[in-house]
């Protein structure tokens, strides 16, 4: 990387990507700002949390202030076909998806890397809180951002070596408060914008209503049963329930009952008492190892079973078929099929896969 390098920066109008762009400009690179226009439900385009006309206008102003060109790109169709459809399909299959993880690899890096290449840019930069480190063999490691509370390496666990070789995360060595302060000092309009939280295309609405509008098939009533198969009531469709849920089941029982399993084969919602919740083992599929090296032996590591979950010590057992079993010391209540399990050793993110099933073996 030298001073003449050209860098495409993904801009959203938010404080993080704005500061990322500003830092690269300051370091003397030739910077090109780009924004992806993603799909929103018809009628809610103004509420999409990252690419509304407002955030595009804001990005334009920031780019103008930084003296860099800025372009917005239409990725609506691809986003609808690949990410929103995945989201709907996963819920319909009784799982709980994480579209951001998939979007990063397929849409953000997929589209923008191609643009970086087409424009002769050397790198793609984003405002993610993560770091990169080169190993002795030239491979790139994905490292947590130093601001642990903001670390976003989880969201980047699907990126390939090719992606990482050409990526830059200018905020990886900064804390969120330092980023905000810098935005203030540099007079970037985005300094006080709230962080985006929800899925962008849900536009702050409940995902169940979104599913009903966009995939009416998720309304698929069936039986609520206990472990022994005794029918206790009716459910509206497995997509509307989550493992561990207690309220809103509409069944009366002397003891509190919880959703302990979503049996999509029989379209049954299995409930049980609190102690039946939890499993100490999960199996992950579609596992992606960032180093590209499949570990041969089981090893211990720290594991996150969802983005904001705490790291938990576990034994990671890679299988010949590419699946990975992860065994915890104590049962966990909220292992959720469809979410991504991401593995860490120290501050390094080793990779991740999608949770296929959970069970108890102890």
């Amino acid at each position, binding site marked *: 990387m030298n001073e003449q390098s050209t860098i495409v920066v993904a801009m959203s109008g938010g404080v993080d990507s704005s500061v990322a762009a500003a830092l690269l400009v300051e370091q003397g690179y030739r910077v*090109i700002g780009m924004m*992806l226009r993603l799909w929103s439900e018809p009628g809610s385009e103004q509420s999409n949390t990252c690419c509304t006309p407002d955030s595009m206008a804001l990005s334009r102003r920031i780019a103008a202030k930084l003296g*860099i*060109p800025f*372009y*917005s*790109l*239409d990725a609506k169709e691809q986003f609808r076909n690949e990410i929103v459809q995945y989201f709907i399909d996963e819920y319909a299959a009784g799982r709980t998806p994480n579209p951001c993880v998939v979007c990063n690899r397929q849409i953000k890096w*997929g589209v923008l890397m191609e643009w970086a290449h087409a424009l*002769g840019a050397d790198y793609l930069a984003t405002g993610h809180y993560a770091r990169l480190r080169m190993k002795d063999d030239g491979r790139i490691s994905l490292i947590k951002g130093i601001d642990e509370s903001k670390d976003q390496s989880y969201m980047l666990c699907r990126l390939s070596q090719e992606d990482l070789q050409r990526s830059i995360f200018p905020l990886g060595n900064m804390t969120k408060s330092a980023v905000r302060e810098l935005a203030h000092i540099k007079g970037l309009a985005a300094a006080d914008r709230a962080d985006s939280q929800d899925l962008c295309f849900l536009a702050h609405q409940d995902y169940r209503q979104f599913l009903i509008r966009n995939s009416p098939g998720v309304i698929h009533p069936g039986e609520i049963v206990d472990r022994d198969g005794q029918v206790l009531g009716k459910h509206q469709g497995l997509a509307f329930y989550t493992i561990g849920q207690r309220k809103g089941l509409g069944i009366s029982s002397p003891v509190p009952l919880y959703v302990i399993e979503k049996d999509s084969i029989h379209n049954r919602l299995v409930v049980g008492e609190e102690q039946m919740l939890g499993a100490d083992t999960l199996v992950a599929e579609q596992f992606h190892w960032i180093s590209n090296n499949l570990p041969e032996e089981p090893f211990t590591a720290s594991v996150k079973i969802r983005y904001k979950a705490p790291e938990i010590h576990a034994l990671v057992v890679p299988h010949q078929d590419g699946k990975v079993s992860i065994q915890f010391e104590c049962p966990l209540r909220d292992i959720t099929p469809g979410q991504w399990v991401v593995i860490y050793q120290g501050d390094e993110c080793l990779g991740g896969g999608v949770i296929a099933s959970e069970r108890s073996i102890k």
Partner: protein
Amino acid sequence: MAMTKQAVWVYLDHAATTPVDGDVVARMLPYFSENYGNPSSIHQAGQIAEAAVEESRAKIARILDSEPDEVIFTGCGTESDNLALNGAAQINRIKKGARHILTTPVEHHAVFATVRHLAERYGFELELLPVDRFGMVDPQEVEKRVRADTAITSVIYANNEIGTINPIAEIGQICREREVPFHTDGVQAAAYLRMNVIRDNIDYLACGAHKFYGPKGVGFLYCRKDAPIEAYQTGGSQERGLRAGTHNVPLIVGMAEAFYQTQVKCQKRAETYISLRDTIIKTILENIPGSHLTGHPSQRLPNHASFVFEGVNGNDLLILLDQAGFGCSSGSACKSGSPKPSEVLLAIGLSPELALGSLRVTLGRNTTQDQITTFLEVLPGLIHHARKMAHR
């Protein structure tokens, strides 16, 4: 050369706007802080300003072959279109019960959105003339469709997206014979074609200065003395009471000078433009498979070449061109990243997919043969990139 960070960046989007000519700027400057009077004032400062405005009006009128008081100063070409269309349609509705508007499907939004508003809000019946595959209107179709209750006919002089020039004099003659007011949007045409309202039988001609090396924010409407019109913006008695508001003296002075500079040299410049334009058209059609010319091959603006490319997203191509050092445009100039196919391109029979792959190259006074040679060398590779991207 525009102000960009690239060492070499070539502007090929003169249909969007042009730089203000240096002589024009020099003419304008004294009217900002020296001769700052209000032309409506009685005192000497006002008289100086008034003289400048009226001299400008006379200058434009001479070029158009009109009377000075037939030239009305406005804020831009769009405003001129609005004034003519609203003014004529409404007064004819009130006085004669006219309720028919005849126009084309290839108008600029300044016209099309205005007549659509008249139809939706005031009940005018909007009729669209057919156009051929080049976007050209057949005068005989006008003959067939004008009616006793036609409030106004509006046909674009030369199309901004596809460059096609309409047979304005013939259409104007038909309208004159049938006593129907005739408006034409001359915003693009006035920058490259010799304008003459008598020759062309025009009742209303809308122009904007920034297309012909004048400043942005000023335009004029030629309105024939006997043509029906009413005020759209009311207030003071400026501009025959048709366009109230203090005159923007420096911009008016600049526009008159720019129009003069443009019109006296337009035939001579056209030769240079046409030779470059035809090189572009010939080279692109020969060298790039799946490319098609849009608009008429010869009856088109001298500086205007426009195309569609199969399997290309026009927006992508514009980004690639910009970063390769060329500022161009597409039919659907859209910065939002969610392009819709241009209505003009659909009206000439292109499929929505093909219409999205449009490119417009418009030349200016400083465009050189070398720039065009480089452009033509670079373009095929960028089209290739854009096609790869569209098929991901």
